[in-house]
């Protein structure tokens, strides 16, 4: 294709200073993205301010591929809140609703039980072996808002990594060979 030949031509005719300036621009773009992500982490108080819904256990409210915005506060967890939590030993966080809370004021012990809206059974079978209740420390944040379908990009890139490489490669090529 003439498009590729054009880009190879432009790579050959570049000078050192231009190359360096392109690299710095690339670095700036990446750093800006990182700064925005970290700032979001501070604002929302959560380690992971944006998560993608991976399973259909909260349908029809949240479908696979939706993006959830999380917020974490010191306020105690109450029944009905949609929380995102990690099970010890498992990597993928789970987004389900709190259905039971048992709180002891004196010792500060709180036991939480969760269940996905579309599941018939509560989450006990998902918790770690021998664990019957969820602890507040395992919860990463509460879901406060969401955007539908926007997370499909992440799902596709995670499940078919080849697409991730193609995309990053093409973007890198575009940035390096742009005539700015």
């Amino acid at each position: 294709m003439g498009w590729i030949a054009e880009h190879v031509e432009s790579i050959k005719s570049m000078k050192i200073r231009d190359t360096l300036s392109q690299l710095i621009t690339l670095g700036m773009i990446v750093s800006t993205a990182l700064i925005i992500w970290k700032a979001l982490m501070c604002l929302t108080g959560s380690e992971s301010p944006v998560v993608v819904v991976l399973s259909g256990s909260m349908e029809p409210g949240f479908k696979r591929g939706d993006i959830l915005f999380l917020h974490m506060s010191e306020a105690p967890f109450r029944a009905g809140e949609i929380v995102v939590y990690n099970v010890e030993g498992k990597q993928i966080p789970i987004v389900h609703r709190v259905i039971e809370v048992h709180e002891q004021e004196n010792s500060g012990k709180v036991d939480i039980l969760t269940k996905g809206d579309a599941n018939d059974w509560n989450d006990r079978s998902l918790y770690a072996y021998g664990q019957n209740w969820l602890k507040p420390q395992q919860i990463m944040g509460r879901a406060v808002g969401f955007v539908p379908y926007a997370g499909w990009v992440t799902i596709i890139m995670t499940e078919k990594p080849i697409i991730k490489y193609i995309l990053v490669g093409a973007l890198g090529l575009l940035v390096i060979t742009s005539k700015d």
Partner: protein
Amino acid sequence: MHSFGYRANAVLTFALTILALMCAIASFSDNFNFPSPSAEIQIVGFNGFKKKPHGNDEVSLTMNITADLQSLFTWNTKQLFIFVAAEYETPQNSLNQVSLWDAIILAKEHAKFWIQTKNKYRFVDQGSNLRGKDFNLTLHWHVMPKTGKMFADKLVMSGFRIPEEHSL
């Protein structure tokens, strides 16, 4: 500057920005809705109250739930998730919330309803503290939008009491 790549990039960025803006405005419009929901729960009867082998009390009951939640729906509402939770205090735990029943309402027409139902989920205490216990039944609703911020609220109905004696 006018190659296909640049044009595609510009169109895509513009499209995404506009979509994000539309989602934000749609969500913001939900703030202009001032709902006036109403609900009532009556306990028809207690079907069983037993002490399980591990020492935890379990209650089984039938209730009548009447509600009019139509005013909670806006054009940006995808569904209404409602549930009834029993709240009570015991010497062991200062707060207990146990969800007894829930439902998903997908359309405004279905938001005005009457239902008689047994508790969907088991009402089990952490321990054996339920005899003669006073408890509240709270109807919670969670407005899940088509896009944007979720709203939640509740209506507390108090004055319910568990029977004094265990029954088979």
